[in-house]
């Protein structure tokens, strides 16, 4: 299983802080596209992805147990 976290406007769109789902074997890009379609997520082209708290490219393959997070453009500081 995988924990998938959402932040900022994505959390509002999904309505949950995180989901638990089985994403093992999928690429980051595939998971992103799937969730974008299922939840009608806005502005996903500018959203980065983190796997286990490190930025990941769309072609990275997700392993069982990985924590995935979708990172909208940041606005700290």
């Amino acid at each position, binding site marked *: 299983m995988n924990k998938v976290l959402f932040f900022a406007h994505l959390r509002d769109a999904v309505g949950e802080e995180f989901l638990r789902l089985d994403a093992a074997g999928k690429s980051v890009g595939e998971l992103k596209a799937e969730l974008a379609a299922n939840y009608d997520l806005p502005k996903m082209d500018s959203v980065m992805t983190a796997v286990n*708290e490190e930025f990941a490219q769309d072609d990275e393959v997700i392993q069982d147990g990985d924590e995935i997070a979708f990172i909208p453009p940041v*606005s700290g*500081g």
Partner: protein
Amino acid sequence: MNFQISKEPIDIQSVIDKVVQRNAGAITTFIGTVREMTKGKKTLFLIYDAYEAMAVKKLEQIGREIEERWPDSQVAITHRVGRLDITDIAVVIAVSTPHRADAYDANRYAIERIKEIVPIWKKEHWEDGEEWMGNQLETVAYPSGKPEEGDLNE
């Protein structure tokens, strides 16, 4: 514990104390505060949220980048999360270096990098609504590389 996310108000002096060193000739401190007016629009308050575990890692990464670029520097950063009112302190960055020019440059580098790679978001609340803000540059953040010239002018 030089890099922290805090739910409580930040004690500026405690951040500065972390970078005190005998080889330092300068300590610069950046204090980011909540501004009321942005492009003519009045902010009532802000909510900051963070992916805390990753945010701490990215702050640590910024610290390592600075220590590589500016030898003998020391860095401490604390970023606040939760509800912040106008004039509240959102972030404190302290950098010590042997010479003053490096302390200024390295501190500037730290705040620009925070705005690129640290997973923290602010939600602005106005009289007529609220919205999560993307980065203020309206550009896509990128995980590696250094700030472009244009990034330094916000």
